[in-house]
């Protein structure tokens, strides 16, 4: 933990704070159907045309049920669209590498994953996806799923801000305006800036270059039919292979990376994601990428404050997010910098920290910072391999996701998730001021608590339930008798368990980052992980929109000295406490079986 890191941290937080208000004010205009922006001369005609094509009356707002229905239909149709593209990849254009069509389960997993803003990737991008699939099938979702998230957040905020209102907005208008006025314009500029840093943007076939130092490696032997050959004991047969050339990925990368970060999607163009030199060429590109992850989620808290006419509340929510974020960074950074005592005994310089799985260009601090940010927000892009973090350094990303991606969180998703905790905090502690709990003048009634509780239940159920199934199922875990690994995880014991837990936390939280270790491209993992992304998205959004509708309908109670305060340090403390007590405690038993045991074992000389 050196001065260099502290300065970068301060710089990051400073710039984030600087952009929060202006971007928040801009969001206020974008999320108002009649809001005026400087882009109106260009975008207005396109916006109007879009409404005409969609047969949408932009003046008409909808109640929460219609809003939800529109969102669900949109999600279903676009998911089907991507599924079709992936299944038909081989006959679609822009496929210079002649990539084959994807399997049913991989297509399902990928379509679900991108529709839900998760971007979990059970595939290796550069060797699986054609340019067409990347741009039309996947990058379109990067925009649209982000826009959906922001729309839902706006609908919930409207529900809180309005009173005795039946409507919470128009889904199609929100979706269109967020895409046209916010995401597209920023990404156009952002992509150009990334290209200036050395990121590629082309439609060329992949390059092949000769290695200066050819080498030989062992690969599994394959028989004539393409099946892995096995020996008498059933073990795969290995054979030597000489490697003398390297294929270098090409394609429309910058355009996809811009929205991948800004929209907290995180699905890498390449398998190495933001650790790849093309995908994250310079320290500046690294800084811009992590800044763009938090930009919109941070601005949304300002938007919240403006909408509910209580900027203090907006900042209190921001501060709660910030406190948990900062704690995460410091813990992760501390343990990564401290490194691995076993490595130190082997003669590795302790000052270099735990460099396993890290890109030398970014080092300890920027890896820990990136890992924390990408899992705070439901981004999931990585510039280092979380699997190789120290146990407690890696616990931070895991716990971040299990809290429900609410620390700034995914675009929109972070705010609406955090607002659920706000409702719970207000409800639990609100009684203590001697009134039935009220949130910004709205009484919190059984229906609202039912919806909020449902969100928490879905989160716990999906993460813990699927992980338990994976632990017990023959498709998820090694054979209990022979300890043979089937097509599931590559590790057993606490570390293997952490990998499983991480996968379902990542998918349910719609994060998409992988701990690695799991060969996830199997029918069972693709299906369950895909389902987890759908649960984590839609099973949460529906009760959240129901809550928005319920809050919008309520009368507003006047505020007085007796009103529960939802701003200031006290409320921030309460909110953080609620997140940790209601959120984190749920996962503590599971975490103690994974990273916490690993931590103690590492210090006594055992690694996994």
């Amino acid at each position, binding site marked *: 933990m050196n001065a260099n890191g502290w300065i970068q941290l301060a710089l990051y937080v400073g710039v984030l704070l600087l952009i929060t208000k202006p971007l928040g004010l801009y969001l206020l205009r974008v999320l108002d159907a009649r809001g005026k922006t400087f882009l109106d001369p260009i975008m207005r005609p396109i916006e109007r045309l879009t409404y005409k094509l969609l047969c949408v009356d932009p003046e008409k707002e909808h109640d929460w049920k219609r809003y939800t229905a529109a969102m669900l239909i949109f999600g279903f149709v676009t998911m089907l669209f991507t599924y079709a593209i992936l299944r038909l990849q081989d006959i679609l254009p822009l496929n210079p590498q002649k990539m084959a069509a994807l399997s049913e389960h991989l297509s399902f997993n990928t379509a679900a994953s991108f529709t839900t803003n998760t971007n979990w990737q059970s595939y290796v991008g550069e060797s699986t996806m054609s340019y067409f699939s990347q741009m039309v099938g996947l990058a379109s979702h990067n925009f649209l799923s982000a826009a959906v998230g922001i729309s839902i957040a706006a609908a919930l905020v409207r529900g809180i801000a309005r009173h005795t209102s039946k409507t919470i907005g128009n889904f199609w208008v929100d979706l269109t305006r967020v895409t046209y006025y916010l995401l597209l314009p920023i990404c156009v500029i952002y992509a150009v800036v990334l290209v200036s840093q050395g990121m590629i943007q082309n439609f060329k076939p992949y390059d092949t270059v000769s290695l200066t130092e050819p080498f030989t490696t062992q690969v599994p032997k394959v028989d004539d039919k393409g099946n892995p050959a096995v020996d008498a004991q059933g073990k795969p047969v290995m054979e030597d292979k000489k490697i003398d050339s390297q294929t270098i990925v090409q394609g429309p990368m910058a355009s996809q990376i811009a929205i991948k970060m800004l929209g907290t999607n995180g699905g890498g163009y390449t398998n190495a994601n933001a650790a790849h030199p093309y995908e994250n060429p310079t320290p500046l590109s690294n800084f811009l990428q992590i800044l763009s992850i938090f930009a919109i989620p941070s601005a949304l808290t300002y938007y919240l404050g403006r909408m509910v006419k209580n900027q203090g509340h907006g900042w209190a929510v921001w501060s709660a997010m910030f406190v948990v974020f900062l704690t995460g960074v410091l813990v992760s950074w501390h343990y990564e910098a401290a490194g691995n005592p076993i490595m130190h005994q082997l003669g590795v310089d302790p000052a270099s920290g735990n460099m396993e799985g890290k890109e030398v260009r970014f080092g300890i601090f920027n890896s820990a910072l990136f890992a924390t940010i990408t899992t705070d927000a439901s981004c999931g892009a990585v510039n280092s391999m979380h699997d190789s973090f120290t146990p407690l350094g890696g616990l931070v990303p895991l716990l971040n996701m299990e809290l429900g991606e609410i620390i700034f969180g995914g675009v929109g998703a972070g705010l609406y998730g955090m607002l659920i905790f706000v409702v*719970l905090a207000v*409800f*639990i*502690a*609100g*009684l*203590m*001021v*001697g*009134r*039935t709990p009220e949130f910004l*003048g709205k009484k*919190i*009634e*059984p229906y609202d*608590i*039912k919806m909020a*509780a*449902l969100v*928490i*239940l879905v989160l*716990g*159920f999906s993460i*813990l*339930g699927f*992980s*338990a199934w994976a632990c*017990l199922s023959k498709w998820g*875990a090694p054979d*209990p008798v022979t300890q043979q690994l089937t097509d599931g995880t590559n590790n*057993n*014991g606490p570390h293997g*368990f952490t990998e*499983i*837990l991480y996968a379902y936390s990542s998918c349910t939280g719609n994060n998409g980052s992988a701990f690695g270790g799991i060969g996830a491209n199997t029918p069972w993992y693709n299906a369950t992980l895909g389902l987890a992304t759908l649960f984590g998205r839609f099973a949460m959004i529906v009760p959240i929109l129901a809550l928005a509708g319920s809050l919008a309908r309520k*009368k507003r*109670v*006047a505020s*007085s*000295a*007796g009103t*529960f*305060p939802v701003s200031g340090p*006290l409320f921030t*403390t*309460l909110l953080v406490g609620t997140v940790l*007590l*209601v959120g984190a405690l*749920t996962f*503590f*038993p*599971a975490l*103690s*079986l*994974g990273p*916490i*045991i690993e931590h*103690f*074992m590492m*210090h006594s000389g055992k690694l996994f």
Partner: protein
Amino acid sequence: MAAKTHSIFDPTIVVPAIGEAFKKLNPLHMVGNPVMFVTEVGAAITTVLMFTGTEGAPFGFLLQVTLWLWFTVIFANFAEAMAEGRGKAQADSLRKARTQTFGQRLTPSGGLEQVPADQLRKEDVVMVKAGELIPGDGEIIEGAATVDESAITGESAPVVREAGGDRSAVTGGTRVLSDVIKIRITSNPGETFLDRMIGLVEGAKRQKTPNEIALTILLSALTIIFLIVLISLKAYGIYVGVTFSITVLVALLVCLIPTTIGGLLSAIGIAGIDRLVQKNVLAMSGRAVEAAGDVDVLLLDKTGTITLGNRQATAFVPVPGVTEQELAEAAQLSSLADETPEGRSIVVLAKQKYGIRGRELHDMPNATFVPFSAQTRMSGVDYNGQSYRKGAAGAIRDWVGGRLPKEIEEEVESISSNGGTPLVVAMKEKALGVIYLKDIVKGGLSERFERFRAIGIRTVMITGDNALTAAAIAKEAGLDDFLAQAKPEDKLALIRKEQEAGHLVAMTGDGTNDAPALAQADVGVAMNTGTQAAKEAGNMVDLDSNPTKLLEVVEIGKQLLITRGALTTFSIANDVAKYFAIIPAMLLGTFPLIAPLNVMRLQSPTSAILSAVIFNALVIIALIPLALRGVKFRPLGAARILRRNLLIYGLGGILVPFIGIKMIDMIITAVHLA
């Protein structure tokens, strides 16, 4: 009913409560409380597992865990039974007021028949003579009587009840002392106010309030989550290579689900209503008590609530050209038939200060008295061809043709601005002068209103006086606002206006014309002396008919909510320490390296688990007094109350179990229980 408070450890309540606690183990009863139901099921499972020999732990350990799990359920039941027992004790004293009586029912033919009181139905008419008990709640439709209501209110002085007007309601169980009255019964047996109240304090018919329902939903959700956590933990154990015994998993589950608040929730609710009864206020529902905590505007009638009720005439101020003597005489004449305390005080002043002898009404056969009405706001007499009137300046101004002499207007203003009430006297449509009536403000009110201001409650005085008078009294009594020259319908309009602005309004009332406002108000406290209509419209009745008590009602409502919130926070915060007790204990066998996680340095895995379970059970017992008495209410702003309670119940809730579990661990290790 005497406002008796019972000591927490009153054996007459504790002993039956112990029995009740066991009876309540019936699963059909437990289903209503999901948290405790899960605990009971868990206890049943571990009971069976003690004998299967599959748990891989010593029998003594299994037995102890199982026993403490059962104790957890029983302690929670005991808390509920205690609250109900205390309620029953209140109910019994209420019941005494309802001993079996007979009523003389009027038959359609006009005769009378003797009917037991519990067979009287709504709309029956009964005759009650001096010395008899009134057989049921009702309204006097004929006659007037003095009634001894001490059985209900504890107040020994008899009160007058008469047909018509605002004092026509009578309560079953009270005794007529003089005269004969005809009463129309207004409630069926079992539906009287007392019946409802008894049902409420006994807890039997208590319906959960919306807030309790919401809290139960949250507690149930937490319970389900922890069920998922524990079931999945078993699966993870298999993967990682740790075997968790079911008994230990159940123990962890019970420690993590919010048993503390789950076990005390209904006790808190019953105790809240019970505290209200101790103040001699009957609430129609638990919801009304909570609404009292939410109220942020109090509408207080000036008379009786803020002032002592009687304004006294203290001076006569004539216009130039009229002597004080002449004014005094006119004032006396106009007040002769005015039986209000103010009217009588005018007669008294005229007699004492100006020696005008009191006239007897029957000496004045040709006099026509004009009673006061809310519409004209004047009273007086037409006598010997002269019309005498007295009333508010506005009313007299209208009567004399729209203008009052300048001197009178000035005097009216000066009296008003001094907090007095001016009454203008006029004869033959000529204003003679002003009567100075003075209000006497009750002591100690302004400190009280100050407390309410601190917690964000606005006090508004309602008075028929003019704005200046009202302002002066409001200032003297320390009120925030006032509504002057209020007609009954203005009250309703004001409530509506406040409610539209998002306020919750409480008020007291007694008259029939208060009924709409009582019904509209979020909390309407009807005076027991009031009309039946008023009592039906409100959601509380004050047996002492003391309007100032509205303030205490609000405090009790707040106290109830604070107690519920405090124990919820405490309960959830407790989980942290329990994790640190049980999780290391569960893993230590397979992974001895995890020992540093045992931050409390508990002796052994078994003692750690046992200590957590014992703490979890005992904390319920330890908090029963707090649940029954309620957290002390302090007149502070919401932010300060929150900070205080978060420190005590939030931070305290995290720290206390660390100490408690460690101590229990030391004790059970010392006595070799683990």
